[in-house]
């Protein structure tokens, strides 16, 4: 187990920068998720830590030792790949004991360690099976056991669940978290699935365009995004550009209640971000309260216990949409075409500096 420090790492391919001045520190035993859209550089960063890609600049330090120039085979970094990567000519047991075998351990010790790890991932009964005789979830479990068999300093998981169906993915996600806690190995998980990242990570590192935008606990990432992209990428919600005016944000002629706007100088460009679960709706009846907005329900999306309602805000030149999550039994009153008032606790919106929502 070890700390992992990525310091000033940069990488370009054919003149296109895919990682720009990346700095990331991981604590011993931490599970950190690299989260971002396709092409954001998260897999490149993982492969740099693994030793498969050499950075143009910067260094990777594992357990205090600079491993930037070491080959992948010399780094003691276990890796689970997105595609099923079990050796097709070997049984599950032989796959798991491959690492100890390469390391020169005696055969009884190799087998003992492999059996312990197959037991850890719940596949003791399948040790004699070949990869093609295992399901996708079982193959990834064996791959996890195989990666742990070398007692790695760092465990790297490159979208290991993306090829699995939803139910197996949820089960294996919990299993990865349990095994990571049991073994205490510092783990980096790459994913583009925010639910996956938020549910198992100690910290989430949100990336976009080769940059690290925010590294924080899942709760902080969700509740207090520090960047417009993070706010839009994680969960759902409405982000508007406006200017800070005391405890409100002015968007065109509307004044939206947001106590956090007071932290910004009067008149400065800001972005206001409101989660749908913070928005309350009521049928239009008389004047619109200060800080609230009126609008027309455009669509409703049934999500089971909740129904998500999208309303188009009245009286703005730029179309503004606000989302509200309602208990489904209360949502029937808000059918498309009905006119409503949306309001929220002034403490609920997040207000971020900068007025451009496009980034």
């Amino acid at each position, binding site marked *: 187990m070890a700390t992992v420090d990525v310091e000033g790492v940069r990488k370009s391919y054919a003149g296109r920068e895919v990682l720009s001045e990346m700095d990331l520190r991981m604590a011993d035993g931490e599970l950190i998720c690299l989260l971002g859209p396709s092409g954001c550089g998260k897999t490149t960063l993982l492969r740099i830590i693994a030793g498969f890609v050499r950075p143009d600049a910067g260094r990777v330090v594992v357990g205090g030792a600079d491993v930037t120039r070491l080959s992948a085979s010399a780094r003691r970094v276990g890796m689970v790949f997105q595609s099923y*990567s079990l050796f097709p000519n070997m049984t599950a047991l032989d796959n798991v004991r491959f690492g100890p075998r390469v390391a020169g351990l005696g055969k009884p010790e190799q087998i003992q360690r492999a059996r312990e790890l197959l037991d850890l991932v719940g596949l003791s009964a399948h040790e004699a099976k070949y990869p093609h005789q295992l399901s996708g979830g079982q193959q990834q479990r064996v791959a996890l056991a195989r990666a742990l068999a070398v007692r790695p300093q760092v465990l*790297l998981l490159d979208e290991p669940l993306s090829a699995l169906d939803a139910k197996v993915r949820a089960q294996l996600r919990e299993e990865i978290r349990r095994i990571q806690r049991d073994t205490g190995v510092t783990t980096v998980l790459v994913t583009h699935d925010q639910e996956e990242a938020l549910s198992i990570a100690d910290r989430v590192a949100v990336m976009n365009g080769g940059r690290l935008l925010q590294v924080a606990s899942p709760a902080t990432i969700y509740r207090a995004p520090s960047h417009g992209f993070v706010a839009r990428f994680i969960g759902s919600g409405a982000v508007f550009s406006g200017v800070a005016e005391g405890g409100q944000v002015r968007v065109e002629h509307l004044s939206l209640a947001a106590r956090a706007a007071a932290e910004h100088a009067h008149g400065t460009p800001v972005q206001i971000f409101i989660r749908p679960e913070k928005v309350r709706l009521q049928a239009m009846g008389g004047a619109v309260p200060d800080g609230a907005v009126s609008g027309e329900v455009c669509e409703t999306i049934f999500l089971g216990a909740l129904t998500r309602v999208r309303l188009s805000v009245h009286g703005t030149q730029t179309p503004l949409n606000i989302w509200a999550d309602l208990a489904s039994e209360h949502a029937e009153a808000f059918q498309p075409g009905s006119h409503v008032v949306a309001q929220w606790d002034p403490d609920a919106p997040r207000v971020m500096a900068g007025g451009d929502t496009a980034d």
Partner: protein
Amino acid sequence: MSDTDRLGAGGWAILILTGLFFAVPLVMTAAFSFWEGGSRYGLEAYHVLLASPKLFEAMALSIELALATVAALVLLLVPAMIFMNLHAPKLRPVFEFIATLPFVVPAIALVAGLSALITGPDWLIGTPFYLVIPYFFLALPYAYRSIDVGIRSIDLPTLTEAAQSLGAGMGQTILWIVLPSLRSAMVGSALLTLAVVFGEFTFANVLLFHTYAVFINEIGQHQVTAAAALSVASFLLTWGAMLGVLVVGRGRATPIGAR
């Protein structure tokens, strides 16, 4: 409804005609090999062949050449293709082009080029093993295709990276993972090479080497039934090789753990 039910009378007719197209010449050749003149049939032609030491010499030479060609392909082509897939995938069109060339250039042109251009050590030039060079290129399209299919089926880059992340060097990765995973592809390419070498006539005849195909031609000049018998034997040999390919291919598809 099963596929055979859907075939219909027209489909069956086409299949039967196609089968007859292939089977009739073979059956007639086999029947002719048993003809001993008049209305007599027997195994005389086969006895003549078995009594001829030249047959076994020619067969032994062809087997040696086939094995040497297979060895050359395994030692040169397999590592080159592994390297190309791992480190230089952009070279794939070049490999494809080279592997197609033997289909484009007539064998007689290859012989002429080979005779004019190749010089080398005495242990190679002037001995039958000189033929391994053209045989390598003749078998290349078949061997390349077979190995290429094998490599594409195993996600070579990911397996290699997985092995490296577990501490394996390139040698261990190739010996313990890549080559065993390509076993059926390599056996397939070896059997196809065997069939190509056994059937090759032009190079051996022009360069005056007495291989199995040349022997068939020679014996056909004066003992036509013996030539027919050899042709039947050649068919059986080639079919045996093809059956080997099929069995090896099927072995890969069946659960390995069940063995």
